[in-house]
């Protein structure tokens, strides 16, 4: 205590008067950094190393054999289809909702805003259950869709629907603060100069929010690819038909095909690292433009 007081008093005399962190000793700083690094390594980096080790341990024969299985390829294809639809829907409607939340005034706005964030807090298992209750046997919409001959549950439509539910918040959460920060002056200038609403949106608003929109989109694609709990309940688990990449991993480990499970899991992890690079890039752009 007294030593620190002394050093703080001596500080102005020293050549470098004040460090960026307010005069903490070098030892404390090193200690803080190493504790933080240790936590990140134990929790994130070491397990990542573990999965890389196990995926490659099996050798390239098993790897190429895994990727030549039609089941595996179809699982990746299905994951991609679901992700693309979910990202497109939540992107377009997300911007729309963000415009309303940022620009419109109405009663109960904080309630609507809480609704938007709700999917972040709701368990994916509950989301799957919701779809089962709506479209399953004795479900609210089951008679209607059965009469039309459209199968929703245990087929692609319900898998897309639950993924949309789960991906709703990401774009909205990124775009709303950007819109609020931007204000309306540019848009008003465009209107006064005679631009139509659509022109204003595509020429002014959209370019201004594009990095935030891309950031939110990357986050929601990551979430859509990784979804398992909700999809598990509504997919029906038909191999090669309604099995996504994550569901394949689940089955591989249940059938003691650990090698294949590790390999597909590593592929997904590699893809998410790519997405992460995109996420970091978009985030930096967003922050830079906000300033």
């Amino acid at each position, binding site marked *: 205590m007294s030593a620190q007081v002394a050093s703080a008093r001596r500080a102005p005399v020293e050549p470098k008067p004040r460090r960026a962190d307010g005069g903490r000793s070098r030892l404390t700083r090193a200690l803080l*950094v190493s504790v933080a690094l240790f936590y*990140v390594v134990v929790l994130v980096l070491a397990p990542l190393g573990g999965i890389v080790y196990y995926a490659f341990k099996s050798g390239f024969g098993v790897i190429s054999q895994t990727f030549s299985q039609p089941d595996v390829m179809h699982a990746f294809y299905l994951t991609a289809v679901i992700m693309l639809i979910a990202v497109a829907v939540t992107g377009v409607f997300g911007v729309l909702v963000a415009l*309303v939340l940022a620009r419109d005034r109405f009663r109960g706005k904080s309630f609507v805003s809480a609704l938007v964030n709700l999917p972040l*807090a709701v368990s*994916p*298992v509950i989301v799957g259950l919701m779809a089962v209750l709506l479209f399953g046997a004795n479900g609210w919409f089951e008679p209607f869709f059965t009469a039309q001959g459209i199968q929703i549950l245990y087929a692609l439509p319900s898998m897309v629907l639950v993924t949309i539910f789960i991906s709703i918040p990401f774009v909205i959460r990124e775009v709303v603060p950007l819109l609020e920060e931007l204000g309306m002056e540019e*848009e008003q200038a465009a209107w006064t100069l005679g631009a139509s609403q659509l022109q204003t949106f595509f020429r002014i608003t959209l370019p201004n929010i594009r990095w935030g929109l891309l950031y939110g989109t990357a986050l929601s694609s990551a979430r859509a690819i990784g979804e*398992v709990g909700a999809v598990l309940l509504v997919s029906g688990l038909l191999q090669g038909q309604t099995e996504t990449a994550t569901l394949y991993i689940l089955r591989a480990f249940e059938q003691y095909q650990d090698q294949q499970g590790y390999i597909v899991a590593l592929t*997904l992890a590699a893809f998410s690292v790519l997405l992460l690079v995109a*996420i970091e890039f978009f985030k930096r752009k967003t922050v830079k433009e906000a300033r």
Partner: protein
Amino acid sequence: MPNGIALARRPFSGRARSRPGALSSWWLRGTAFLYLGLFVVLPVIVILDRGFGDGISHLVDALGAFGAWNAIKLTLIMALLTAVVNAVFGTLLAYVLVRIRFPGRELVSAIVDLPFAIPSLVAGVMLVALYGPNSAVGGWLEDRGLQIIFAPPGILLALLFVTLPLVVRSVQPVLSELDREEEEAAQTLGASGWVTFRRIVLPALRPAIVAGALLAFSRALGEFGAIVFVSGNIPNHTLTAPVFITQLISPAYGGSGGKEKAAAVAALLFALAFVLVLITERLLTSDADRAAR
């Protein structure tokens, strides 16, 4: 330039004010509400209706099932531990990332975001690969009597992994906006680093830490993907509520006809999640208001 805009706006002042309203006119607002209504509100109503349409009998049934109480208890305890541990380490990480320059800082910042990108199921696979009984690290720990996978510590690790970014990302912006002058004043007056942190920095960060921890808590309550491999799902020992609900509904997990029971438990968890989101919302907005002032 602002002058120019003001001049341009003046002749139309009546219309200019209504114009933004025109952009967010009835169809925009209507579409937004319809979208949220169909995708968010409707599913919520169906859960409440099916779970509690016949009173609380389904809930009583569900709680009477084998292992139900312990599943809920375990889920709550694990979520609480997750929130507390990540509140501490998340704040530490945010502090280190914002206030200390060290080589590789940007990389660490990116790694903190990794759990946002990596599928939670893959996170579970990763933890099994490293700490599982067949791996070198897991075997070594087990020889010393510490079982991680298929035991509560594994569940905790999985939950800590998936919620790692939440506290960090909620504290970081507040910390970097924080005015340094108060800290410097405290230090000139002789306060130690720790005292400065506890008296000056921590109070300013508190709403952000609590908001992040609440998010982590509600995420942990519902987590399925990261836990399903790691926990082993042993009733009365490592079975958590989300996995329990899955077992009630999914044919693949040997359950059928338990939809109403599942809905009742789900409605309960759901209500808790909604309350937590509302509180978080309040905390974060009051925080933003204070910053705006």
